[in-house]
């Protein structure tokens, strides 16, 4: 077709740049395979890794089941039905994402651990509460922290394909519930799998929460190899194997649904939510309130109380600058990452070539590694580039000082590498629901390619783009290892404040910056509320 002809190969070059950026720290990590410490590996294989691997698989399994139940269940409930408070719940259910998982863990442990306040209180009343410092406690906490990764994309998918799919299902004689299982859910699969993949990666890479709960997963093994056994190469080798396994599993899932199409004919109208029966409506309201209370409001109240009691001494005017730095990094990082992810998603949509599929996978790999390991790779790359620059500058009699290390530019590039997939998944899922025939139909009606983009694609992609940017913003505001290792001198953020205090064992005092992070997370959530597809999708259908 003539519209595919272009003089400048923008797409391949753009994708290649992203792949190089993402691959550079990975290559730095891969060079660790030059030094395999055989005796250490023997020890790890004998005493450490088997137990850690099975713990990882078990934890991952439980977390995925719980997040899918919570995320998909709540998404369907708030999209297909109306009940008291549903307009609030639709966007508020994303809020728990803004509390860093390890902060949530610390709050729960402060209540329910053997020395916890609730446990101690129960003990005086003669009740012995079960221990929560185990796999189940960790899994429930992780699920409560991460279910929004599934909830939001699932909701967007339900809202944009739901109506027509339900109609089709219902004309085939299915009940609303049966149509959900047989038509709506399969159509939303890319979105749900994308969200679940993010949860999986977060769980695999998590170190803070699992170490508070005393759970030995492979990421703990990675830290043990680095910090305990003083072998960073071994740590990187474990991390690389883990990341590749995760990627292969994801590729396998894509292969399993290679032939499926996730588009409904025409855009159709948005799903019209039905009122729940008077009996079920209060149950739904209570359920949503309970999730919000447990995962967000109650921890927040605890943080406020600690911040008031313990954090006041640490509250200075500097907090304005910490907050400002976090917001600046969050917004600029979210913008850059979301735009690049949009580009990457379109690139993949345009080309069905297998090379493109693998290029995209490589570009997204940064998220599957524990942040601290990726941070080492980033610093290695930045330092190498600086060395190149200095060599060039010497040649040209320019001042030979590093230009990249310790700059915001380097920090933002590192965030992009880390969080590209977070933005990519929802955008990709949204694009998969736009059929090529929709493009053609619009063009046959006389629309220019630009008009196809602005009038057909944009309304469908916009909510996903907002969700992607919100996810990245929240992730950047919470991000620690890369920020710590590459931030400019004196450039402190809310996350680095949490580190200063928690690393020194002052968890209650850390409530103050943790609270500020949670508040910062409110901002993108408000953006999500504004782009909510249930309210904004135009009712008039072009087809």
């Amino acid at each position: 077709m003539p519209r595919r002809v272009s003089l400048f190969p923008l797409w391949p070059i753009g994708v290649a740049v992203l792949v190089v950026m993402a691959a550079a720290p990975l290559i730095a990590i891969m060079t660790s395979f030059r030094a395999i410490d055989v005796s250490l590996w023997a020890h790890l294989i004998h005493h450490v890794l088997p137990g850690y691997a099975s713990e990882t698989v078990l934890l991952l399994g439980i977390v995925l089941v719980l997040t899918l139940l919570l995320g998909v269940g709540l998404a369907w409930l708030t999209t297909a039905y109306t009940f008291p408070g549903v307009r609030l719940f639709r966007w508020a259910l994303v809020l728990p994402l803004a509390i860093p998982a390890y902060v949530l863990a610390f709050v729960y442990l402060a209540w329910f651990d053997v020395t916890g306040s609730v446990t101690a209180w129960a003990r005086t009343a003669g009740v012995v509460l079960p221990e929560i410092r185990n796999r189940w406690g960790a899994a429930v906490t992780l699920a409560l922290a991460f279910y929004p990764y599934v909830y939001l994309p699932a909701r967007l998918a339900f809202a944009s394909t739901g109506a027509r799919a339900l109609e089709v299902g219902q004309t085939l004689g299915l009940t609303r519930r049966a149509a959900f299982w047989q038509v709506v859910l399969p159509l939303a699969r890319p979105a749900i799998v994308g969200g679940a993949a993010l949860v999986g990666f977060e769980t695999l890479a998590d170190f803070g929460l699992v170490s508070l709960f005393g759970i030995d997963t492979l990421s703990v093994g990675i830290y043990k190899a680095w910090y305990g056994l003083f072998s960073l190469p071994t740590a990187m080798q474990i991390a690389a194997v883990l990341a590749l396994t995760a990627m292969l599993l994801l590729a396998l899932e894509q292969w399993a649904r290679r032939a499926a199409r996730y588009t409904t004919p025409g855009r159709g109208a948005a799903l019209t939510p039905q009122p729940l029966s008077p009996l079920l409506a209060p149950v739904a309201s209570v359920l949503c309130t309970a999730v919000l209370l447990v995962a967000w409001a109650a921890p927040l109240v605890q943080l406020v109380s600690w911040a008031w009691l313990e954090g006041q001494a640490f509250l200075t005017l500097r907090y304005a600058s910490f907050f400002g730095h976090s917001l600046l990094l969050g917004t600029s990082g979210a913008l850059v990452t979301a735009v690049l992810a949009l580009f990457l998603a379109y690139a993949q949509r345009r080309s069905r070539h297998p090379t493109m599929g693998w290029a995209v996978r490589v570009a997204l790999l940064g998220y599957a590694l524990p942040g601290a390991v990726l941070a080492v790779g980033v610093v290695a790359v930045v330092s190498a580039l600086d060395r190149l620059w200095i060599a060039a500058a010497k040649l040209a009699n320019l001042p030979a000082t590093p230009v990249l290390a310790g700059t915001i530019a380097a920090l933002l590039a590192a965030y992009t590498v880390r969080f590209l997939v977070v933005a990519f998944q929802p955008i990709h899922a949204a694009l998969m629901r736009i059929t090529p025939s929709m493009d053609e139909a619009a063009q046959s009606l006389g629309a220019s390619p630009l008009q196809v983009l602005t009038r057909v694609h944009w309304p469908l992609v916009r909510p996903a783009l907002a969700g992607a940017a919100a996810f990245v913003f929240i992730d950047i505001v919470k991000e620690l290892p890369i920020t710590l290792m590459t931030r400019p001198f004196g450039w402190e953020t809310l996350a680095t404040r949490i580190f200063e205090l928690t690393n020194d064992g002052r968890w209650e005092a850390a409530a103050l910056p943790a609270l500020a992070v949670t508040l910062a997370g409110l901002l993108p959530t408000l953006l999500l509320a504004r782009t909510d597809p249930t309210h904004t999708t135009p009712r008039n259908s072009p087809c």
Partner: protein
Amino acid sequence: MTARRRFTRALVALCLAPLTLFGAPTHATDILTVYSARNEQLIEPIFTAFTQETGIAVRFTTDKDGALIERLKAEGENTPADVLITVDAGNLWLAKEMGVVQPVVSPTLTSKIPTHLRDSQGHWFGVSMRARVVMRHASKVGANEITRYEDLADPKWKGRLCLRTAKNVYNQSLVAMMIAELGEARAEQIVKGWVANLATPPLPNDTAVLQAIAQGVCDVGLANTYYLGRLVEKEPNFPVVPVWTNQEDRGVHVNVSGVAVTRHAKRPELAKKFLEWLTTDEAQKRFAELNHEFPVVAGVAVSPLVAKWGTFKSSETPLAKAGELQRAAVQLMDRVQWR
């Protein structure tokens, strides 16, 4: 220079010039640059005092020890850092192994800091001492009921011991020093006994261990004294007291928060001056008091709260062993399944 070469140079310069606008970190003359694993609230007051007394400004960044050492390694000769500060001896040893720090020749430092608290070749120096001891419930456990680390392995304490996770570097250093002092087999036997006596799975931090003892979850535990200091500061009747362990033989296990001059320091003289300043009585007092730690220089007073616990004899095994044997210690802890 040929005309062509001059042209090439000019061209390269022209292309690269705009890049210099990207806020290159400037190397001002009288600024000391520090990478610190000691967290801001425990180190910034020291820098402020140093600047006030000497007029030398300090800029610093914090991170975990391991990350800072990797950063120094990656940055190589382009590192902006002059000084590295850590919170344990193992990582100082690692920094030396990795070749990211350089020896300092200073009679002041060697005369003031005891031999076992510094590197024998001057690559690093401990500047404050942290004691990791047995902690007991003030009333439930008698003063002489437990006197040694070894005693915690006694079946008498079955179900009465709380430990922090083995992932913690202070536990790793303690076990490493036990390997150095008692041999690996004996150390393993003892640590195995500890694990058998646990009342609850290992706790995430020292404060949790102390709180567990206070609340009766267990009766004895292991912790650094400054964590107790913080709790007692808030709650004077906190019912846990330290046991000055092994006073009849090798003494209390101590670790250090220490400093080193980076290998590629741009201002090694300033760095040396800072190190020496840290051993002045006033700086020692300040450094230790910020966190209820112990000064390394003899004759410097401890905080009143710490003074109440009395004096103790500390182990004089060179702390470099904590780094050298850390790997063996972690493997030992893996074998006995201290999680």
